[in-house]
């Protein structure tokens, strides 16, 4: 696979990178740069060099996974670049090429796929109340435990249509709508990306000697928690 050629075909890359002047404004405003080992200026500069080997290094690194996609960089870049868009193209290529499993952060994409990714096709939304508990999300706090314990009564009081057909908050998304989403995922490459995440992750889990099946298996828990 010619990675550089593929990267240059990605519309997010085309729209994200014009010519970087290395001013560092993106790094100055970047929330990720303030809390992790991430520097969008250096990342963009490396990509701009257009060297196949440096692209491989980037795709195998943790760096591309630290961005929080707030896109503050888009507002501020004096040359109209968007490092956050370039990151999207690099992440897509890292998964497509299988290189994502070479970094700790890249490996974690399995846990994201098995939560928000799979939720879309099961519930019609990225998030659903039944999948959230204070073991996985302790910051939800005791109020969430109270809501979960009493969800039928509380949600009915608040006018939600929890798990029922029709319109409304937290309704049951119809099979017809879910089938549309499934067909779109198949048509536009999301199923293929999901398949690659699962297959490469299975290989990595085997190499690491961690049990790999489905859902919240040992490999998922390792990636999610550690």
């Amino acid at each position, binding site marked *: 696979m010619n990675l550089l050629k593929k990267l240059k075909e990605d519309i997010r890359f085309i729209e994200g990178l014009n010519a970087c002047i290395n001013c560092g404004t993106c790094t100055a405003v970047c*929330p990720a740069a303030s809390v992790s080992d991430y520097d969008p200026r250096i990342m963009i500069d490396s990509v701009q060099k257009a060297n196949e080997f440096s692209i491989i290094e980037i795709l195998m690194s943790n760096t591309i996974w630290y961005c929080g996609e707030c896109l503050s960089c888009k507002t501020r870049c004096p040359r109209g670049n968007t490092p956050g868009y370039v990151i999207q193209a690099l992440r897509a290529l890292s998964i497509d090429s299988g290189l994502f499993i070479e970094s700790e952060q890249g490996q*974690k994409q399995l846990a994201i796929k098995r939560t928000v990714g799979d939720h879309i096709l099961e519930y019609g939304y990225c998030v659903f109340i039944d999948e959230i508990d204070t073991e996985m999300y302790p910051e939800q706090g005791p109020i969430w435990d109270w809501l979960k314990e009493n969800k039928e009564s509380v949600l009915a009081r608040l006018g939600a249509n929890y798990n029922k057909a029709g319109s409304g908050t937290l309704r049951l998304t119809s099979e017809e709508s879910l089938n549309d989403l499934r067909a779109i995922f198949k048509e536009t490459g999301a199923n293929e990306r999901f398949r690659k995440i699962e297959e490469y992750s299975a290989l990595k889990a085997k190499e690491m000697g961690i049990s790999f099946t489905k859902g919240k298996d040992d490999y998922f828990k390792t990636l999610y928690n550690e």
Partner: protein
Amino acid sequence: MITSKHYIMNNSIKENNRNKSWETYQKDIADDNYYFARSCIRQNFFPAAEELFLKIISKELGKDIFDDERQTTCTGIAYHSGVIPFETTMTVVARQFALMTEAGYENFVCSCVTSFGIYTEVLETWKHNPSKEQEIRESLKRATGKTFQIPKNLVHTSDLIYKFREEILSKSKFRLLNKLNGEPLRIVDHIGCHYAKIFPDKGIGGAEFPYVLAGMIDSWGGSQVDYPERRHCCGFGFRQYLLKSNRGYSISNSKIKFDSMAPYKPDLIIANCPGCTFFLDRWQYVIAEMEGKTYGENGYGIPVLTYEELAGLLLGYNPWDIGLQLHQVSVESLLDKLGVNYNPLEKYKGLNGEDLGKPEMPNVLKCY
């Protein structure tokens, strides 16, 4: 030497620039007939907020708004986390537009700032790349048989509350005034990055001086808190929050904001984006439990509301019927300042007054 004259002149120039910026970034918001799209986060974490919004628009303001049972996510959280391709997101968005078209609407309003960014990004991409729009039209047709019209008007739900803020004020029972001392309430507004940082000309006031929430504060009698980290991200970070191992990113960024706003002693935070509302509420709880630090008065937190929750309170809705008991930071300090007459015994009741017991109290953060 800087004199008071210079200071006044500088402030005047600053104010002039700000006003000019607001004029530049005015936004066309349709008067009526909206197709409504729900949020993944808002309907789960603030499960009364969207019904309240629909009530305000339809019952209080008499507008037509359609809540379609066939709608779905826009996929924004998954897209920004890198697990689904942009082509998938564009085609799901195209399906939402097709549902709007089938229902006979032209004005699209979404209840999530991330979604607003996604819909805007898709339309801008198609504008720059017409062949991409054609490709997505063909993908949608093959996958679902659907076709669509591009919305004539695309706005965020807060844009509607902003547009009708004076009408809401005229029906309101309360103002953003502290009954205890007669002063305007000090209010922090948090806009959410994807409202205007991606496409500044699509947000009221742009990215520099977003006015969508500030306009509500001004109209309803409150006082804006202009603190140093006002425009900083709440720290969602998509994949960073979604993984327990990466959540330090999220809480660290929220903490930057809390520490920056604390000296101004805000009475209330209002947030534009469902995710931001959640993080600014829950990270106060976590910081209290981890570090013993609280940001509100007397060991409580600073209440955090969505804009429709605030509008609902001012309109006189019972706080426990609009879900304010589901915030981890208690809202009672705000209710007392506004002069809202509430019954503490109703707070944790279920349907038809069912007694559901009380949630556990945090160890550090004081709650009612």
